[in-house]
């Protein structure tokens, strides 16, 4: 017993020590993280964010300095809160609340206490900040937009949110990150790489040199400048035309797939989302549930395409060999099937392809569609084949491009109808609306613009994209490889001729531009809204799809004007003006321009929500803006012309 006392105590102490070590080092210890190590000070150096230029080299987005008040809670000493709050122009409650947040985030890491000081405030504060331990002013660089255009294209930057912080360790709290537009899709290119230096501290919190001789440091890489495909002048002009209307315009250069303009109405000044009022302004835009300025109608709005879609059915008919350009069908104010009738308007009959396109004859395309479907034994096989052809135009799916938002649209297939009616329980007549771009077909303006570009190219398209050039880098190859449709080249000529005749003698005769051979197609799309729980039909959307010149096309465009009624009423005029502006830089159809600037659809948008009964389409009236507003628009136009 006597012999064992010390021995057993030695063993006991040894076990206790190992137990304690286990507690300290394994049980109670988190995985080592250099950023959490209070012996290491992490110093970030933020590179300059890349600039954004338009296709002509005009600077669109640059940087400007901004000053944030930062706090490191651990280093804060008791201070005269009232004086400090009055300096920062905040309330005491706000001070306490923010301080608490900073503490909860981390007692020793810098936290943005107050962001984006004005220059004047900075000048005053700079001197006095030294008095307040733990607070300091950090200079950052924020965006500045040279022109008040393209908010939906350019996007904006803002503080990184928690979800991204959790997923991407690159970012630290308070970092700025692209939130919309090219700022988000080219975030990594524009931001560069922030530099990180790890500095070894001693226990008095003094720096004693680079940690491990700088082995873990990350050098700063400046952000790269990018050139986007937008023609800022065309963009600006388009936004002017869109004033007082809602809708989207997308213009593409067919030979490259470059997006020349991308307009969404209503728009807003991108400078609203810079600086101290960013969140206030953002919430205002975000909460406008009727006008939805943050909703990019050019990319996100899915509408039935209406008549422009007929061109695709013509192409499929030719490709499948079920129709020739000379085949004629009669039309007596519509197309009868069973005991039902698809209406049409008054025009000559019988109808061949050319006439069918430029008069937009519903009966003609119903017949073509039936022939496409009936080529096969079952409706399912016909549908399957048709769907494949349509999808080869980039419809019914995401374009897989470099825009931050998008919608796939919808092209029905066998599945769609099997689900709706059951297998083998549906026939071509069930789907006949697809012949004229109604029914189950949905497209976005950019998809229609791309469809137009594909026809302009006679059979292929480049994925529409926004990036033109990246500083010391190349753009992704998927934007420079053509995508071919399933339609042979020779079938496009008759369709192109038909679209040309739409301008010559068809539905778009009134919006001709002398000296430019434009091919186009009007469209009108029925649409509904849920108002007070009731599905209500609203005035048709005015749609226009075009490209020009007919040979060697330079621009393909799709214009959607919500509730603008028939195609040439709003959309056609605007498409012609855009094309003329881009190709000639001068407007000869001043009458069209004045008409568009003068007319507003705001009353049309308010009508359904006024609570009073209202008429649509033929019963609507045109309204003009007042003279003062018109003068302002004319002044704006003069400014654009002057450049």
């Amino acid at each position, binding site marked *: 017993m*006597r*012999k064992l*006392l*010390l*021995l057993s*105590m*030695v*063993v006991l*102490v*040894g076990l*206790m*020590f*190992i137990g*304690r*070590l*286990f507690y*300290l*080092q*394994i049980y*109670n*210890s988190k*995985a*080592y993280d*250099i950023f959490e*190590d209070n*012996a*290491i000070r992490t110093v970030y150096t933020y590179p300059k964010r890349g600039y954004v230029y338009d296709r002509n080299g005009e600077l669109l987005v640059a940087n400007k300095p901004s000053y944030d008040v930062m706090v490191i809670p651990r280093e804060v000493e008791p201070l005269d809160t009232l004086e400090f709050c009055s300096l920062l122009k905040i309330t005491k409650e706000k001070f306490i609340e923010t301080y608490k947040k900073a503490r909860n985030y981390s007692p020793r890491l810098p936290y943005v206490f107050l962001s984006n000081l004005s220059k004047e405030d900075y000048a005053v504060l700079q001197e006095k900040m030294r008095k307040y331990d733990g607070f300091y002013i950090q200079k950052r660089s924020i965006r500045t937009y040279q022109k008040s255009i393209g908010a939906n294209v350019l996007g904006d930057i803002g503080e990184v949110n928690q979800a991204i912080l959790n997923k991407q360790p690159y970012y630290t709290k308070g970092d700025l990150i692209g939130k919309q537009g090219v700022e988000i899709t080219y975030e990594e290119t524009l931001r560069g790489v922030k530099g990180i230096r790890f500095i*070894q*501290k*001693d*226990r008095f919190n003094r720096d*004693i040199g680079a*940690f*491990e*001789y700088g082995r873990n440091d990350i050098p700063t890489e400046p952000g790269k400048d990018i050139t986007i495909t937008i023609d800022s002048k065309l963009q600006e002009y388009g936004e002017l035309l869109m004033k007082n209307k809602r809708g989207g315009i997308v213009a593409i250069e067919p030979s490259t797939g470059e997006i020349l303009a991308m307009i969404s109405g209503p728009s807003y000044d991108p400078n609203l989302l810079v600086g101290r009022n960013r969140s206030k302004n953002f919430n205002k835009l975000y909460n406008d549930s009727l006008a939805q300025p943050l909703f990019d109608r050019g990319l996100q709005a899915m509408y039935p395409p209406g008549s422009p879609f007929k061109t695709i059915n013509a192409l499929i008919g030719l490709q499948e060999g079920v129709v020739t350009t000379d085949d004629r069908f009669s039309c007596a104010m519509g197309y009868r099937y069973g005991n039902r009738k698809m209406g049409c308007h008054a025009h000559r009959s019988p109808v061949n392809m050319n006439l069918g396109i430029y008069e937009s004859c519903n009966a003609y395309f119903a017949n073509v569609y039936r022939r496409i479907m009936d080529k096969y034994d079952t409706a399912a096989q016909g549908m399957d084949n048709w769907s494949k052809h349509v999808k080869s135009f980039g419809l019914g799916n995401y374009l897989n491009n470099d825009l931050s938002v998008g919608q796939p649209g919808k092209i029905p297939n066998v599945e769609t109808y099997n689900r709706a009616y059951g297998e083998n329980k549906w026939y071509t007549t069930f789907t006949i609306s697809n012949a004229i771009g109604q029914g189950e077909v949905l497209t976005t303006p950019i998809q229609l613009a791309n469809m137009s570009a594909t026809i302009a190219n006679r059979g292929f398209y480049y994925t529409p994209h926004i990036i033109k050039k990246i500083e010391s880098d190349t753009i992704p190859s998927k934007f420079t490889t053509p995508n071919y449709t399933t339609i042979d080249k020779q079938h496009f000529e008759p369709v192109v001729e038909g679209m040309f005749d739409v301008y010559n003698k068809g539905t778009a005769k009134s919006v001709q531009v002398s000296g430019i051979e434009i091919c186009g197609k009007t469209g009108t799309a029925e649409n509904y809204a849920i108002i007070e729980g009731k599905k209500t039909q609203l005035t048709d959307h005015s749609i226009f799809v075009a490209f020009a010149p007919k040979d060697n096309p330079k621009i393909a465009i799709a214009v959607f004007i919500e509730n603008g009624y028939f195609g040439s009423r709003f959309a056609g005029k605007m498409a012609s003006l855009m094309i003329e502006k881009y190709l000639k830089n001068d407007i000869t159809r001043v009458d069209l321009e004045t008409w568009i600037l003068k007319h507003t659809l705001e009353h049309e948008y308010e009508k359904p929500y006024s609570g009073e009964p209202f008429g649509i389409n033929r019963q609507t009236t045109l309204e003009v803006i007042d003279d003062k507003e018109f003068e302002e628009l004319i002044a704006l136009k003069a400014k654009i012309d002057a450049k």
Partner: protein
Amino acid sequence: MIRENQRRFQFDWTIIVIYLLLVAFGYLNIMSASHTGEVTNYFDTSELYGKQIAFIGISFVLIILILSVEAKFYERFASVIYVVAILSLIGLFIFGKDVNGARSWYGIGSMTIQPSEFAKFAAALAVAKYISDIETNMKTIESQLKAVALIVFPSILILLQNDAGSTLVYASFFFVFYREGLQQVYLIIAISLVALAVLSLKFGIVITLLIAAVIVFSIYFFRRKKRASLIQSITILIVCTVFAYGVKLFYEHGLKEHQQNRISIWLRLEKDPEKLERMKKVEAYNLIQSEQAIGSGGTFGKGFMQGTRTTGKFVPEQDTDYIFSTVGEEWGFLGSSAVIILFVILIARVLYLSENQKSQFSRVYGYAVAAILFIHFTINIGMVMGLVPTVGIPLPFFSYGGSGLLGFTILLFIFIKLDSNKINEW
């Protein structure tokens, strides 16, 4: 001739290998904890680790000397060595040099020597010599008092030099005395007093005394055969009461503020958050930094010379008393456990060999070696990990310091020499 050769190499290699491992590993950790700038020369004597290498060299020379001297020498000259050690301790009051408020060093040029480090083996020799004397019987009060006097003398001298930590080391001789015949009752009293002191500080005197009363009276009622008288039990309780109040009084008035705070931190007595916050910056600072450094090491550690807290010198005295926190940060749970296991094996091995000694002198000396190592090991590592209140004593073979390393080397190798000689004892 053959027997001669065999005898010469009959040293206990287990102990020697562990010793070498500890010294080498200690050296690496001193390098980590003390280097300034990049290490280019391991023998750079302007740096602490370079000096430590020199001390290790001197130790090796000493080892050869110790092992070549006739084993009987240590027994014969134990008294002389003891007297020299005591004189050197007394000499400090005249020639000593103040370092951090303790007068424990002689200064010779740029070198300093700490005699208390050498007094340990001297006291061990003296105690071994006294107990192994045929006239000594540790069961008698007289012998017990004389033996205690042998260790009280140096420990008082050391206490007077303001080195409370080193004084505490002499408590280790209690294990030696107990092994050699000290009555069990002392062990019970010692344990009871420690428990009484800790409990009364932690839970207050009333609760502690209630517990004591319950224990004392249950013993009174259940030990019917050899029942102690009621008066005896009451006396014990009165002693307990007096002692408990004595402890409280001593804690509140007898201790210096920093000592009081150390105990308060250990037992988590402080309730006032403001004072606690202040203590965290002063008395508990070392401990908090040390625990964080160890904790940050995790399972595998950050690697040699990679400890951020070590490099940033966050833990004060990390190359000396707090050297184990370097091990914890850079070598992790695995490395730290290895060090603990090495110490346990070393002490157990010394104990095992001691029990097998034929001469009582060797056995007592070996026991003293084990006990001294045990106290250092327990208090030092316990302190670094917050299990024991802060007491500044070094970790044997590990901590930076020439006197310490040489003192422990001598202590251990005299035993190795004695052990190697056991076949000559009849």
